[in-house]
Protein backbone atom coordinates (compact mmCIF):
# COMPACT_ATOMS: atom_id res chain seq x y z
CA UNK A 1 0.00 0.00 0.00
CA UNK A 2 1.38 3.38 -0.99
CA UNK A 3 0.17 6.61 0.60
CA UNK A 4 2.61 8.83 -1.25
CA UNK A 5 1.44 11.70 -3.38
CA UNK A 6 3.52 13.82 -5.75
CA UNK A 7 2.79 17.46 -6.46
CA UNK A 8 4.90 19.39 -8.97
CA UNK A 9 7.74 16.90 -8.60
CA UNK A 10 7.70 16.97 -4.78
CA UNK A 11 6.83 13.63 -3.18
CA UNK A 12 5.01 13.66 0.15
CA UNK A 13 4.94 10.56 2.36
CA UNK A 14 1.19 10.93 2.75
CA UNK A 15 -1.40 13.46 1.61
CA UNK A 16 -2.05 15.06 5.01
CA UNK A 17 -0.86 18.63 5.57
CA UNK A 18 -1.63 21.43 7.98
CA UNK A 19 -3.63 24.46 6.79
CA UNK A 20 -1.69 27.69 6.94
CA UNK A 21 -2.32 29.82 10.01
CA UNK A 22 -3.79 27.05 12.10
CA UNK A 23 -0.58 25.26 13.04
CA UNK A 24 1.96 28.07 13.52
CA UNK A 25 5.28 26.63 12.35
CA UNK A 26 4.57 23.33 14.06
CA UNK A 27 6.22 24.16 17.42
CA UNK A 28 3.00 24.38 19.41
CA UNK A 29 1.30 21.29 18.01
CA UNK A 30 4.60 19.40 18.03
CA UNK A 31 3.80 18.82 21.71
CA UNK A 32 0.75 16.80 20.64
CA UNK A 33 1.63 15.14 17.34
CA UNK A 34 4.76 13.65 15.86
CA UNK A 35 5.49 16.04 13.00
CA UNK A 36 7.43 13.25 11.26
CA UNK A 37 4.12 11.59 10.52
CA UNK A 38 2.73 14.48 8.48
CA UNK A 39 2.93 14.81 4.70
CA UNK A 40 3.87 18.47 5.10
CA UNK A 41 3.72 21.36 7.51
CA UNK A 42 2.30 24.45 5.82
CA UNK A 43 3.36 27.45 7.87
CA UNK A 44 1.51 30.63 8.85
CA UNK A 45 1.56 33.39 6.21
CA UNK A 46 4.82 35.33 6.28
CA UNK A 47 5.49 38.77 4.78
CA UNK A 48 8.64 40.74 3.99
CA UNK A 49 8.37 42.68 7.27
CA UNK A 50 6.60 41.95 10.60
CA UNK A 51 2.84 42.60 10.57
CA UNK A 52 1.00 43.39 13.82
CA UNK A 53 -2.35 42.00 12.65
CA UNK A 54 -5.83 43.15 13.65
CA UNK A 55 -7.29 44.31 16.97
CA UNK A 56 -9.09 41.76 19.19
CA UNK A 57 -11.50 40.00 19.32
CA UNK A 58 -9.95 38.16 16.41
CA UNK A 59 -11.89 34.91 16.67
CA UNK A 60 -15.51 33.97 17.24
CA UNK A 61 -17.45 30.77 17.30
CA UNK A 62 -20.25 30.18 14.77
CA UNK A 63 -22.48 27.14 14.28
CA UNK A 64 -20.20 24.27 13.30
CA UNK A 65 -17.21 26.52 12.75
CA UNK A 66 -15.52 29.79 13.52
CA UNK A 67 -14.70 33.22 12.17
CA UNK A 68 -11.21 34.66 12.31
CA UNK A 69 -9.66 37.98 11.45
CA UNK A 70 -6.09 37.58 12.67
CA UNK A 71 -4.94 39.97 9.99
CA UNK A 72 -1.86 37.91 9.09
CA UNK A 73 0.18 38.82 12.14
CA UNK A 74 3.66 37.49 11.44
CA UNK A 75 7.25 38.16 12.56
CA UNK A 76 8.56 38.84 9.04
CA UNK A 77 10.61 36.63 6.75
CA UNK A 78 14.01 37.20 8.42
CA UNK A 79 12.97 35.96 11.85
CA UNK A 80 11.00 33.19 10.20
CA UNK A 81 14.05 31.94 8.31
CA UNK A 82 16.31 32.16 11.36
CA UNK A 83 13.94 30.44 13.74
CA UNK A 84 11.05 28.56 12.15
CA UNK A 85 12.83 26.86 9.23
CA UNK A 86 15.66 25.43 11.40
CA UNK A 87 13.01 24.10 13.79
CA UNK A 88 11.09 22.34 11.01
CA UNK A 89 14.26 21.01 9.37
CA UNK A 90 14.71 18.69 12.35
CA UNK A 91 11.72 16.69 11.16
CA UNK A 92 11.22 14.26 8.33
CA UNK A 93 8.33 16.16 6.78
CA UNK A 94 8.10 18.57 3.86
CA UNK A 95 8.02 22.29 4.49
CA UNK A 96 5.61 24.49 2.54
CA UNK A 97 5.83 28.20 3.32
CA UNK A 98 2.72 30.34 2.97
CA UNK A 99 3.59 33.82 1.66
CA UNK A 100 1.52 37.00 2.03
CA UNK A 101 2.04 40.59 0.95
CA UNK A 102 0.43 43.91 0.19
CA UNK A 103 2.04 44.44 -3.19
CA UNK A 104 3.65 42.28 -5.86
CA UNK A 105 7.05 43.55 -4.68
CA UNK A 106 6.34 42.35 -1.11
CA UNK A 107 5.59 38.85 -2.35
CA UNK A 108 8.61 38.79 -4.63
CA UNK A 109 10.94 39.86 -1.82
CA UNK A 110 9.79 36.95 0.37
CA UNK A 111 9.84 34.46 -2.49
CA UNK A 112 13.40 35.44 -3.40
CA UNK A 113 14.65 35.07 0.17
CA UNK A 114 13.06 31.64 0.42
CA UNK A 115 14.72 30.66 -2.85
CA UNK A 116 18.02 30.36 -0.94
CA UNK A 117 16.55 27.76 1.40
CA UNK A 118 16.53 24.28 -0.14
CA UNK A 119 14.71 22.82 2.89
CA UNK A 120 11.57 24.62 1.72
CA UNK A 121 9.88 22.32 -0.80
CA UNK A 122 7.13 24.56 -2.07
CA UNK A 123 5.68 28.03 -1.65
CA UNK A 124 1.99 28.62 -1.10
CA UNK A 125 0.97 32.08 -2.23
CA UNK A 126 -1.88 33.53 -0.21
CA UNK A 127 -3.78 35.87 -2.50
CA UNK A 128 -6.99 35.13 -0.72
CA UNK A 129 -6.90 36.36 2.85
CA UNK A 130 -10.14 38.25 3.48
CA UNK A 131 -8.82 39.97 6.59
CA UNK A 132 -6.38 42.55 5.31
CA UNK A 133 -7.65 45.63 3.58
CA UNK A 134 -4.78 46.23 1.19
CA UNK A 135 -3.43 43.82 -1.37
CA UNK A 136 -3.87 40.13 -0.74
CA UNK A 137 -7.50 39.46 -1.49
CA UNK A 138 -7.60 41.91 -4.40
CA UNK A 139 -5.16 39.62 -6.22
CA UNK A 140 -7.35 36.65 -5.52
CA UNK A 141 -10.72 37.94 -6.66
CA UNK A 142 -10.04 39.08 -10.20
CA UNK A 143 -8.79 36.63 -12.77
CA UNK A 144 -6.51 39.11 -14.55
CA UNK A 145 -4.92 40.29 -11.28
CA UNK A 146 -4.39 36.67 -10.24
CA UNK A 147 -2.83 35.91 -13.61
CA UNK A 148 -0.42 38.84 -13.30
CA UNK A 149 0.78 38.15 -9.77
CA UNK A 150 1.16 34.44 -10.46
CA UNK A 151 3.24 35.14 -13.56
CA UNK A 152 5.42 37.65 -11.69
CA UNK A 153 6.03 35.36 -8.71
CA UNK A 154 6.76 32.44 -10.99
CA UNK A 155 9.59 34.48 -12.57
CA UNK A 156 11.32 34.82 -9.19
CA UNK A 157 10.47 31.58 -7.41
CA UNK A 158 13.03 28.79 -7.18
CA UNK A 159 10.51 26.37 -5.65
CA UNK A 160 7.26 25.26 -7.26
CA UNK A 161 4.35 27.54 -6.34
CA UNK A 162 0.89 26.74 -5.09
CA UNK A 163 -1.68 29.50 -5.61
CA UNK A 164 -4.17 29.52 -2.74
CA UNK A 165 -7.58 30.44 -4.03
CA UNK A 166 -10.37 32.40 -2.39
CA UNK A 167 -13.86 30.95 -2.32
CA UNK A 168 -15.26 34.50 -2.32
CA UNK A 169 -15.66 34.59 -6.10
CA UNK A 170 -18.50 33.93 -8.50
CA UNK A 171 -16.72 31.28 -10.54
CA UNK A 172 -13.85 29.33 -9.02
CA UNK A 173 -12.97 27.69 -12.34
CA UNK A 174 -12.15 31.06 -13.88
CA UNK A 175 -9.64 31.70 -11.08
CA UNK A 176 -8.20 28.21 -11.26
CA UNK A 177 -7.68 28.52 -15.01
CA UNK A 178 -6.05 31.95 -14.69
CA UNK A 179 -3.55 30.65 -12.14
CA UNK A 180 -2.76 27.61 -14.28
CA UNK A 181 -2.35 29.69 -17.43
CA UNK A 182 0.10 31.98 -15.60
CA UNK A 183 2.29 29.03 -14.65
CA UNK A 184 1.13 27.98 -11.16
CA UNK A 185 2.40 24.50 -10.31
CA UNK A 186 -0.52 23.63 -8.06
CA UNK A 187 -3.61 25.12 -6.41
CA UNK A 188 -4.86 25.01 -2.86
CA UNK A 189 -8.42 25.74 -1.87
CA UNK A 190 -10.39 26.90 -0.12
CA UNK A 191 -9.34 29.81 2.01
CA UNK A 192 -11.97 31.08 4.44
CA UNK A 193 -15.40 32.34 3.40
CA UNK A 194 -16.11 35.93 4.45
CA UNK A 195 -18.67 36.03 7.23
CA UNK A 196 -20.04 38.20 10.02
CA UNK A 197 -21.44 37.68 13.50
CA UNK A 198 -23.27 40.20 15.66
CA UNK A 199 -23.56 39.99 19.43
CA UNK A 200 -27.20 41.02 19.84
CA UNK A 201 -26.90 41.70 23.58
CA UNK A 202 -23.99 44.11 23.29
CA UNK A 203 -25.03 45.25 19.78
CA UNK A 204 -21.47 44.84 18.65
CA UNK A 205 -19.64 42.85 16.01
CA UNK A 206 -18.23 39.63 17.44
CA UNK A 207 -14.98 40.31 15.54
CA UNK A 208 -13.27 43.70 15.86
CA UNK A 209 -12.63 43.69 12.10
CA UNK A 210 -16.43 43.34 11.63
CA UNK A 211 -15.99 40.61 9.03
CA UNK A 212 -14.00 37.43 9.51
CA UNK A 213 -13.12 34.37 7.48
CA UNK A 214 -15.31 31.38 8.20
CA UNK A 215 -13.77 27.94 8.53
CA UNK A 216 -14.55 24.61 10.14
CA UNK A 217 -16.92 21.72 9.38
CA UNK A 218 -19.81 24.02 8.39
CA UNK A 219 -17.96 25.11 5.21
CA UNK A 220 -16.99 21.63 4.02
CA UNK A 221 -19.71 21.10 1.38
CA UNK A 222 -18.81 24.41 -0.26
CA UNK A 223 -15.14 23.45 -0.26
CA UNK A 224 -15.72 19.96 -1.70
CA UNK A 225 -17.83 21.45 -4.49
CA UNK A 226 -15.13 24.00 -5.35
CA UNK A 227 -12.34 21.41 -5.33
CA UNK A 228 -14.42 19.25 -7.67
CA UNK A 229 -15.09 22.16 -10.03
CA UNK A 230 -11.46 23.30 -10.03
CA UNK A 231 -10.20 19.77 -10.60
CA UNK A 232 -12.32 19.56 -13.72
CA UNK A 233 -11.13 22.93 -14.97
CA UNK A 234 -7.34 22.48 -14.69
CA UNK A 235 -4.62 19.83 -15.07
CA UNK A 236 -2.40 20.97 -12.18
CA UNK A 237 -2.71 19.19 -8.81
CA UNK A 238 -4.97 20.50 -6.06
CA UNK A 239 -4.57 20.57 -2.29
CA UNK A 240 -8.06 20.50 -0.82
CA UNK A 241 -9.18 21.96 2.49
CA UNK A 242 -12.15 23.44 4.31
CA UNK A 243 -13.69 21.85 7.37
CA UNK A 244 -11.84 18.55 7.37
CA UNK A 245 -12.44 16.90 10.76
CA UNK A 246 -11.62 13.26 10.08
CA UNK A 247 -10.42 10.76 7.46
CA UNK A 248 -13.88 10.45 5.87
CA UNK A 249 -13.88 14.18 5.18
CA UNK A 250 -10.36 14.01 3.77
CA UNK A 251 -11.28 11.14 1.45
CA UNK A 252 -14.25 13.13 0.16
CA UNK A 253 -11.85 15.88 -0.94
CA UNK A 254 -9.54 13.35 -2.57
CA UNK A 255 -12.37 11.67 -4.45
CA UNK A 256 -13.51 15.14 -5.56
CA UNK A 257 -10.11 15.66 -7.16
CA UNK A 258 -7.56 16.66 -4.50
CA UNK A 259 -4.04 15.19 -4.53
CA UNK A 260 -3.52 16.19 -0.89
CA UNK A 261 -5.53 17.71 1.95
CA UNK A 262 -4.97 20.23 4.73
CA UNK A 263 -6.41 20.30 8.22
CA UNK A 264 -7.20 23.76 9.59
CA UNK A 265 -9.65 24.80 12.28
CA UNK A 266 -10.16 21.26 13.52
CA UNK A 267 -6.64 21.28 14.96
CA UNK A 268 -8.07 23.67 17.53
CA UNK A 269 -10.84 21.27 18.46
CA UNK A 270 -8.72 18.13 18.45
CA UNK A 271 -4.96 18.66 18.31
CA UNK A 272 -4.50 15.05 17.18
CA UNK A 273 -6.70 15.45 14.04
CA UNK A 274 -3.83 15.38 11.53
CA UNK A 275 -2.40 12.03 12.61
CA UNK A 276 -5.87 10.55 13.07
CA UNK A 277 -6.61 11.46 9.46
CA UNK A 278 -3.40 9.78 8.26
CA UNK A 279 -4.36 6.61 10.11
CA UNK A 280 -7.97 6.76 8.91
CA UNK A 281 -6.98 7.10 5.25
CA UNK A 282 -4.73 4.08 5.67
CA UNK A 283 -7.64 2.09 7.14
CA UNK A 284 -9.89 3.13 4.26
CA UNK A 285 -7.30 2.04 1.70
CA UNK A 286 -7.01 -1.35 3.42
CA UNK A 287 -10.75 -1.77 3.63
CA UNK A 288 -11.30 -1.08 -0.07
CA UNK A 289 -8.05 -2.65 -1.29
CA UNK A 290 -6.66 0.57 -2.69
CA UNK A 291 -3.04 -0.01 -3.66
CA UNK A 292 -2.04 3.60 -4.37
CA UNK A 293 -3.50 6.67 -2.78
CA UNK A 294 -3.22 8.40 -6.14
CA UNK A 295 -5.85 5.99 -7.48
CA UNK A 296 -8.37 7.78 -5.30
CA UNK A 297 -7.77 11.29 -6.64
CA UNK A 298 -10.85 12.33 -8.60
CA UNK A 299 -12.26 8.84 -8.33
CA UNK A 300 -15.80 9.87 -7.55
CA UNK A 301 -18.37 8.15 -9.73
CA UNK A 302 -15.89 6.35 -11.97
Amino acid at each position, binding site marked *: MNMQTTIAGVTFKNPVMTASGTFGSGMEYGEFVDLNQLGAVVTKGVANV*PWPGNPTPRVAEVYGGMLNAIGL*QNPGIDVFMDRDIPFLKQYDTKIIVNVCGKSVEDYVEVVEKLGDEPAVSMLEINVSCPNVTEGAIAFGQKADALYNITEEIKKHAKQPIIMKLSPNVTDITEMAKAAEAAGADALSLINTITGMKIDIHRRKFAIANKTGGMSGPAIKPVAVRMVYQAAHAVQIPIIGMGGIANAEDAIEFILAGASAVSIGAMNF*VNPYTTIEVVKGIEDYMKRYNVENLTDLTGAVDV
Partner: protein
Amino acid sequence: MKQKQTAVVASQRELAPMIYDMWIESDLAKDALPGQFLCVYTRNKSTLLPRPISICEVNEDKSALRIVYRIAGQGTAEFATYKAGEPVEILGTLGNGFNVEVAAGKKVFLMGGGIGVPPMLQLAKALNAVTAKENIQIVVGYRDNQTFLREDLEKYGQVYIATEDGSVGTKGNVMNAIEENALQADVIMACGPMPMLRAIKGYAENADIPAYISLEEHMACGVGACLGCVVKTKEKDHHSHVNNARICTDGPVFEAKEVDI
Protein backbone atom coordinates in the same frame (compact mmCIF):
# COMPACT_ATOMS: atom_id res chain seq x y z
CA MET B 1 2.42 18.68 30.32
CA LYS B 2 -0.08 19.65 27.64
CA GLN B 3 -2.62 17.08 26.61
CA LYS B 4 -6.18 16.81 25.40
CA GLN B 5 -8.00 14.10 27.26
CA THR B 6 -11.35 12.72 28.27
CA ALA B 7 -11.38 13.15 32.03
CA VAL B 8 -14.04 12.21 34.55
CA VAL B 9 -16.26 14.53 36.56
CA ALA B 10 -15.65 13.71 40.22
CA SER B 11 -18.39 15.96 41.55
CA GLN B 12 -20.43 18.97 40.63
CA ARG B 13 -22.65 21.33 42.58
CA GLU B 14 -24.22 24.75 42.25
CA LEU B 15 -22.21 27.09 44.44
CA ALA B 16 -24.41 30.17 43.98
CA PRO B 17 -27.07 31.03 41.43
CA MET B 18 -25.52 30.42 37.97
CA ILE B 19 -22.11 29.59 39.54
CA TYR B 20 -20.97 25.97 39.33
CA ASP B 21 -18.21 24.10 41.09
CA MET B 22 -16.81 21.02 39.34
CA TRP B 23 -14.04 18.68 40.42
CA ILE B 24 -12.41 16.79 37.55
CA GLU B 25 -10.26 13.69 38.05
CA SER B 26 -7.22 14.11 35.83
CA ASP B 27 -3.50 13.43 35.87
CA LEU B 28 -3.11 16.98 34.55
CA ALA B 29 -3.44 18.00 38.21
CA LYS B 30 0.10 16.72 38.82
CA ASP B 31 1.89 19.78 37.56
CA ALA B 32 -0.90 22.36 37.47
CA LEU B 33 0.18 25.84 38.60
CA PRO B 34 -1.98 28.56 40.13
CA GLY B 35 -3.27 30.88 37.40
CA GLN B 36 -3.07 28.25 34.69
CA PHE B 37 -6.25 27.25 32.91
CA LEU B 38 -7.97 24.42 31.09
CA CYS B 39 -9.80 24.48 27.80
CA VAL B 40 -13.07 22.64 28.21
CA TYR B 41 -14.92 21.32 25.14
CA THR B 42 -18.64 20.78 24.67
CA ARG B 43 -20.21 17.51 23.55
CA ASN B 44 -22.43 19.54 21.26
CA LYS B 45 -20.68 19.49 17.88
CA SER B 46 -22.07 22.84 16.78
CA THR B 47 -20.11 24.67 19.49
CA LEU B 48 -16.61 23.59 18.60
CA LEU B 49 -14.24 26.07 20.20
CA PRO B 50 -12.78 25.47 23.63
CA ARG B 51 -14.01 27.32 26.73
CA PRO B 52 -11.01 28.55 28.75
CA ILE B 53 -11.61 28.11 32.51
CA SER B 54 -9.09 28.83 35.27
CA ILE B 55 -7.87 26.20 37.65
CA CYS B 56 -9.42 27.07 40.99
CA GLU B 57 -7.85 24.39 43.13
CA VAL B 58 -5.78 21.21 43.02
CA ASN B 59 -6.56 18.49 45.57
CA GLU B 60 -4.12 17.20 48.17
CA ASP B 61 -2.82 14.19 46.24
CA LYS B 62 -2.81 16.06 42.93
CA SER B 63 -5.29 13.76 41.26
CA ALA B 64 -8.09 16.21 40.62
CA LEU B 65 -8.67 19.78 39.46
CA ARG B 66 -11.42 22.11 40.53
CA ILE B 67 -13.05 24.67 38.25
CA VAL B 68 -15.61 27.25 39.33
CA TYR B 69 -17.48 28.92 36.50
CA ARG B 70 -20.45 31.10 35.71
CA ILE B 71 -23.06 30.09 33.15
CA ALA B 72 -22.35 32.64 30.44
CA GLY B 73 -23.72 30.95 27.33
CA GLN B 74 -24.23 27.65 25.59
CA GLY B 75 -20.99 25.95 26.56
CA THR B 76 -20.98 26.68 30.25
CA ALA B 77 -24.72 25.84 30.38
CA GLU B 78 -23.85 22.41 28.99
CA PHE B 79 -21.01 21.89 31.49
CA ALA B 80 -23.40 22.68 34.34
CA THR B 81 -25.49 19.60 33.44
CA TYR B 82 -22.56 17.18 33.92
CA LYS B 83 -22.92 14.73 36.80
CA ALA B 84 -20.28 12.83 38.77
CA GLY B 85 -18.90 9.93 36.74
CA GLU B 86 -19.58 11.53 33.36
CA PRO B 87 -16.79 12.30 30.89
CA VAL B 88 -15.52 15.83 30.29
CA GLU B 89 -13.19 16.82 27.44
CA ILE B 90 -10.32 19.01 28.57
CA LEU B 91 -7.07 20.37 27.22
CA GLY B 92 -4.47 21.42 29.74
CA THR B 93 -2.66 22.60 31.55
CA LEU B 94 -2.36 25.89 29.71
CA GLY B 95 -0.72 29.26 30.22
CA ASN B 96 2.10 30.46 32.44
CA GLY B 97 0.35 30.91 35.79
CA PHE B 98 1.36 33.25 38.61
CA ASN B 99 4.95 33.21 39.74
CA VAL B 100 4.62 32.82 43.51
CA GLU B 101 8.35 33.34 44.09
CA VAL B 102 8.03 37.09 43.46
CA ALA B 103 5.98 37.25 46.66
CA ALA B 104 8.47 35.38 48.85
CA GLY B 105 8.38 36.93 52.32
CA LYS B 106 6.29 39.86 51.07
CA LYS B 107 2.90 41.39 51.77
CA VAL B 108 0.57 40.54 48.90
CA PHE B 109 -2.81 41.59 47.61
CA LEU B 110 -4.69 38.79 45.92
CA MET B 111 -7.48 40.55 44.13
CA GLY B 112 -10.36 38.79 42.44
CA GLY B 113 -13.49 40.22 40.92
CA GLY B 114 -16.59 38.12 40.18
CA ILE B 115 -15.67 35.09 38.16
CA GLY B 116 -12.02 36.17 38.55
CA VAL B 117 -12.16 35.03 42.19
CA PRO B 118 -11.67 31.26 41.56
CA PRO B 119 -7.98 31.25 40.51
CA MET B 120 -7.14 33.18 43.70
CA LEU B 121 -7.83 30.07 45.76
CA GLN B 122 -5.00 27.85 44.50
CA LEU B 123 -2.79 30.93 44.38
CA ALA B 124 -3.49 31.71 48.05
CA LYS B 125 -2.67 28.11 48.95
CA ALA B 126 0.60 28.23 47.03
CA LEU B 127 1.59 31.56 48.57
CA ASN B 128 1.39 30.04 52.03
CA ALA B 129 4.59 28.17 51.16
CA VAL B 130 6.53 31.38 50.49
CA THR B 131 5.12 34.01 52.83
CA ALA B 132 3.32 34.24 56.18
CA LYS B 133 -0.45 33.81 56.20
CA GLU B 134 -0.97 37.30 57.66
CA ASN B 135 0.86 38.71 54.64
CA ILE B 136 -1.73 37.23 52.31
CA GLN B 137 -4.48 39.80 51.94
CA ILE B 138 -7.27 38.46 49.77
CA VAL B 139 -9.46 41.26 48.46
CA VAL B 140 -12.44 39.97 46.53
CA GLY B 141 -15.37 41.71 44.88
CA TYR B 142 -18.85 40.36 44.20
CA ARG B 143 -22.16 41.72 42.91
CA ASP B 144 -24.15 40.83 46.03
CA ASN B 145 -24.20 38.56 49.07
CA GLN B 146 -23.41 35.48 46.95
CA THR B 147 -19.81 35.49 48.12
CA PHE B 148 -18.81 32.13 46.68
CA LEU B 149 -15.48 30.58 47.76
CA ARG B 150 -15.25 32.90 50.77
CA GLU B 151 -14.88 30.08 53.33
CA ASP B 152 -12.23 28.35 51.20
CA LEU B 153 -10.24 31.57 50.87
CA GLU B 154 -10.40 32.30 54.60
CA LYS B 155 -8.27 29.21 55.25
CA TYR B 156 -5.32 30.71 53.42
CA GLY B 157 -5.27 34.41 54.23
CA GLN B 158 -7.05 37.49 55.52
CA VAL B 159 -10.18 38.02 53.40
CA TYR B 160 -11.65 41.45 52.64
CA ILE B 161 -14.91 41.64 50.70
CA ALA B 162 -16.48 44.31 48.54
CA THR B 163 -19.98 44.01 47.10
CA GLU B 164 -21.60 46.23 44.50
CA ASP B 165 -24.84 46.36 46.47
CA GLY B 166 -23.11 46.79 49.83
CA SER B 167 -24.75 43.68 51.30
CA VAL B 168 -21.40 42.30 52.55
CA GLY B 169 -18.18 44.13 53.43
CA THR B 170 -17.30 47.36 51.67
CA LYS B 171 -19.89 48.82 49.32
CA GLY B 172 -18.23 49.21 45.95
CA ASN B 173 -15.30 47.43 44.36
CA VAL B 174 -12.00 45.92 45.46
CA MET B 175 -10.24 49.29 45.26
CA ASN B 176 -12.78 50.71 47.71
CA ALA B 177 -12.12 47.77 50.04
CA ILE B 178 -8.38 48.48 50.06
CA GLU B 179 -9.05 52.10 50.89
CA GLU B 180 -11.67 51.45 53.56
CA ASN B 181 -9.43 48.93 55.34
CA ALA B 182 -6.29 51.07 54.82
CA LEU B 183 -4.42 48.11 53.36
CA GLN B 184 -1.07 48.13 51.67
CA ALA B 185 1.09 45.54 49.95
CA ASP B 186 4.43 44.98 48.19
CA VAL B 187 3.00 43.06 45.26
CA ILE B 188 -0.40 42.49 43.64
CA MET B 189 -1.80 39.42 41.91
CA ALA B 190 -5.20 39.80 40.32
CA CYS B 191 -7.88 38.37 38.08
CA GLY B 192 -11.19 39.95 37.15
CA PRO B 193 -13.05 42.17 34.73
CA MET B 194 -11.11 44.65 32.61
CA PRO B 195 -12.18 47.84 34.48
CA MET B 196 -10.90 46.29 37.71
CA LEU B 197 -7.60 45.29 36.10
CA ARG B 198 -7.17 48.79 34.67
CA ALA B 199 -7.76 50.28 38.12
CA ILE B 200 -5.21 47.90 39.61
CA LYS B 201 -2.67 48.76 36.93
CA GLY B 202 -3.10 52.45 37.77
CA TYR B 203 -2.91 51.81 41.52
CA ALA B 204 0.26 49.73 41.17
CA GLU B 205 1.94 52.39 39.05
CA ASN B 206 1.15 55.06 41.65
CA ALA B 207 2.25 52.88 44.54
CA ASP B 208 5.29 51.78 42.52
CA ILE B 209 4.73 48.10 43.20
CA PRO B 210 4.54 45.23 40.72
CA ALA B 211 1.10 43.92 39.76
CA TYR B 212 0.55 40.62 38.00
CA ILE B 213 -2.80 40.44 36.25
CA SER B 214 -4.56 37.57 34.53
CA LEU B 215 -6.13 38.55 31.20
CA GLU B 216 -8.99 37.14 29.13
CA GLU B 217 -9.50 36.99 25.40
CA HIS B 218 -11.49 34.87 23.00
CA MET B 219 -9.44 31.83 22.07
CA ALA B 220 -9.43 29.25 19.30
CA CYS B 221 -6.41 26.99 19.84
CA GLY B 222 -5.43 27.75 23.44
CA VAL B 223 -1.86 26.65 22.71
CA GLY B 224 -0.28 29.60 20.92
CA ALA B 225 -0.72 28.54 17.30
CA CYS B 226 -3.58 30.66 15.93
CA LEU B 227 -2.63 34.16 17.21
CA GLY B 228 -6.27 34.75 18.08
CA CYS B 229 -5.84 35.79 21.70
CA VAL B 230 -3.30 38.59 21.71
CA VAL B 231 -2.82 41.58 24.00
CA LYS B 232 -0.85 44.69 23.08
CA THR B 233 2.51 44.83 24.80
CA LYS B 234 4.86 47.70 25.56
CA GLU B 235 7.93 45.90 24.27
CA LYS B 236 8.15 43.82 21.14
CA ASP B 237 7.23 40.28 22.08
CA HIS B 238 10.03 37.69 21.81
CA HIS B 239 7.85 35.30 19.84
CA SER B 240 5.80 37.56 17.57
CA HIS B 241 8.41 40.31 17.03
CA VAL B 242 5.54 42.80 17.09
CA ASN B 243 3.87 44.45 20.10
CA ASN B 244 1.53 41.54 20.69
CA ALA B 245 1.77 38.64 23.12
CA ARG B 246 -0.43 35.56 23.17
CA ILE B 247 -2.62 35.43 26.27
CA CYS B 248 -2.97 31.65 26.08
CA THR B 249 0.75 30.89 26.15
CA ASP B 250 2.74 34.00 27.09
CA GLY B 251 -0.03 34.73 29.65
CA PRO B 252 -2.70 34.71 30.87
CA VAL B 253 -0.67 36.36 33.65
CA PHE B 254 1.29 39.48 32.69
CA GLU B 255 3.01 42.16 34.67
CA ALA B 256 0.53 45.05 34.39
CA LYS B 257 3.10 47.61 33.26
CA GLU B 258 4.06 45.42 30.29
CA VAL B 259 0.61 45.32 28.72
CA ASP B 260 -1.56 47.96 27.14
CA ILE B 261 -5.09 47.34 28.42
